């Protein structure tokens, strides 16, 4: 008897393996021309898993601390066998994960997959996106290079502008009044312990919710299927959808490998806290639209500090966006139209401000 079959029987005798995977075999996924958007969530998860794996490998050599961090990353890049590949894949996967997470979020909005009963799935996804951005912000500083140092300084300064709790929050993030080695060890702690724990928990919740409610069918397709039930199609989750997802993961792996090999993630120069800030300080690309907006707001708006106004606006917009499913059913389709309009505006605004931010930084 083959080894695999023997293992299955062994598990079946002890855990009712066939009973456990039975629902998975019966599970189906709607099959329509927009099904490909479903892969984005899985690809985001794939990039997260890659980061967990490469992050553990980097931990073998990385040393948090203002005097050692840069040198340890330099050592990884130049001396450790395939260290350059692991670090580049870690950094590229982080950026691609944010990208696919944003694409996933907007696809959910435009396909209206957030609607009842999936409000909690949307909320868990939004919190996952915030955590992913937290990963990016904390990880950016870890190589302790000039660009990251000053970008973190600016980023935490902006946090300090939040009314009432801003200064305390900034001191908590920095581990003091300034960005120092204490900030680095603190960010390292967030990056490798706090954020992974929270993210793993939320991913599990998100996946359970996705499994419980099943994949959403876009309203247009759903209406068509209702009027002509014969047109309704689905495919088995396992192996049909699973194998397609696997193909998407392989393509993602190819893109990731190509980026890491052709454009290895650069290291820059070691941060010098006493040096003046160099020109062209900028955050990671996914913070650029906010960064550029804050730069464009006048120093004073009415009697308020311009930066505070910007932070309050972004905070309010973020809150509304997070609560978006709850506006869907408001006022006979008005809420739905408002959400579509807001989504189109958000995509255009983020895209335009990001491009403008990079052009202005040149």
């Amino acid at each position, binding site marked *: 008897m083959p080894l695999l079959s023997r293992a299955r029987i062994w598990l079946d005798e002890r855990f009712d393996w066939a009973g456990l995977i039975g629902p998975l075999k019966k599970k189906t996924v709607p099959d329509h021309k927009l099904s490909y958007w479903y892969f984005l969530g899985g690809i985001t998860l794939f990039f997260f898993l890659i980061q967990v794996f490469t992050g553990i490998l980097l931990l073998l050599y990385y040393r948090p601390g203002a005097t050692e961090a840069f040198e340890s990353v*330099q050592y990884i890049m*130049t001396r450790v066998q395939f260290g*350059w590949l692991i670090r580049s894949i870690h950094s590229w996967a982080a950026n691609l994960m944010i990208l696919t997470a944003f694409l996933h979020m907007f696809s959910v909005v435009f396909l209206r997959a957030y609607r009842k009963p999936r409000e909690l799935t949307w909320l868990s996804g939004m919190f996952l996106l915030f955590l992913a951005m937290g990963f990016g912000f904390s990880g950016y500083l870890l190589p302790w290079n000039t660009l990251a140092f000053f970008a973190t300084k600016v980023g935490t300064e902006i946090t300090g502008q939040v009314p009432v709790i801003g200064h305390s929050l900034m001191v908590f993030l920095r581990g003091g009044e300034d960005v120092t080695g204490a900030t680095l060890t603190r960010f390292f702690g967030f990056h490798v312990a706090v954020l992974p724990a929270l993210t793993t928990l939320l991913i599990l919740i998100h996946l359970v919710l996705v499994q419980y409610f099943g994949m959403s069918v876009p309203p247009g397709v759903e209406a068509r299927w209702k009027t002509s039930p014969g047109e309704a199609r689905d495919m088995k989750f396992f*192996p049909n959808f699973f*194998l397609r997802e*696997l*193909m998407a993961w*392989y393509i993602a792996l190819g893109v990731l490998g190509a980026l890491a090999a052709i454009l290895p993630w650069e290291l820059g*120069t070691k941060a010098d806290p006493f040096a003046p800030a160099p020109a062209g300080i900028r955050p990671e690309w996914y913070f650029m639209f906010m960064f550029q907006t804050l730069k464009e707001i006048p120093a004073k708006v009415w009697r308020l500090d311009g930066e505070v106004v910007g932070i309050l606006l972004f905070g309010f917009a973020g809150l509304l966006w997070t609560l978006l499913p709850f506006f869907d059913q408001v006022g006979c389709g008005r809420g739905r139209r408002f959400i579509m309009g807001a989504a189109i505006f958000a995509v255009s605004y983020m895209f335009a401000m990001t491009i403008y931010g990079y052009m202005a930084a040149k």
Partner: protein
Amino acid sequence: MDTWLPNNALRGALFFFVALVLRVSIAQGQTPNTCLDCHGALDPPLQVTEQRFANDIHSQKGLTCASCHGGDPTRADMDAMSKAAGFRGKVTRKDVPGLCGGCHSDAAFMRKYNPSLRTDQLSQYKTSVHGALFAKGDMKVAVCIDCHGVHDLRPARDTQSKVNPLNVAQTCARCHSDAEYMKTYGIPTDQFAKYGTSVHHEAMTARDDLSAPTCTTCHGNHGATPPGVGTVQNVCSTCHVFQADMYEKSSHKGAFQAAGLPGCVVCHGNHGITQPTDAKLGTSPEGVCMQCHSPGDVCDQARAKMLGGLTQLDQAIKGANQVLSRAESSGMEVSEARLGQDQARDSLTKARVTIHSFQTKLVEQDIQTGLATAAKNLQAGKDALRERNYRRVGLGVSVLAILIVLLGLRLYIRQIESNSK
């Protein structure tokens, strides 16, 4: 009894307030200076405005017009300028050094105002060419006020001061670039124009390096005098220590002295010193060696050897730079080799300094050190490029493997879906 003051306490408070106002008024007034009341309104050259005099360091330290001109500045009438009031009137040019020196040579007096200020300006001045001619009765030469100004005399650290390092050259040039004014002295008047083309001027103005040499750095200020033929290298060596040390031990020192040639100036010039290049060792018009040496002689051979070494090292550094830049633009990490390039450049700089020893053996040592470092860096760059190619091949193989798996998966999906139908 009725009184317009309600009680003794209030009367006491009023008395205290009046006393305080009087005390403040007296403190602020210090020594009244009524001179400016009239002289502020007069036309030049008698005009001295309050605003102008307020910029003067002497005014800021509490001195008044009377400190130099005598008289009684507390009186508001013409008697303030009477002989009885000690008025000395306009200070003649002849009396200026003595008047300034009266205070500035008095260490005990000056300590009250600025303990770190030197008090040897007058004695230095007397040793200067200016002072020597002045002593002979030449009233055209510079006295204190010509360089420092008068009535709005600012400390040298003030960027508006005429003797601030940024302004010294212009201050000297006011006389020394005036051909008509300098006609009787028979010295060139192109120093300022030449200095404007020099590397020293560029350092001072373009790079804001206030330590860069200006006129007074080489000639002195109060004791200004042209450095003699035998002492030029002492002037240059205050900054160019290593070059001077090498030159001191070289065969050129004795030869130049014997020929009456002014050391460093022979090859580098004086006011118009430009950034020296390796071409100075060459045979082009820019070269300096062949102005004295003959083609083919032992010195010419040494010159050619040293120039060859410098050129070789320069080329080696540039070659390594090119390879490292290519590796860097491919995203390879070569920062260690970049640091190594700094070491190679240091060796080249050291070799250029060692040229002043005019010993090929010493220069060769620096060049060989630099060449070894540049070769190591070049190898690091080549290794990085080889690693880049290896990565690309690895990527190609991986992409091919991924494509094969994708194709296999697609075919498998098609097969299971056609079977299920």
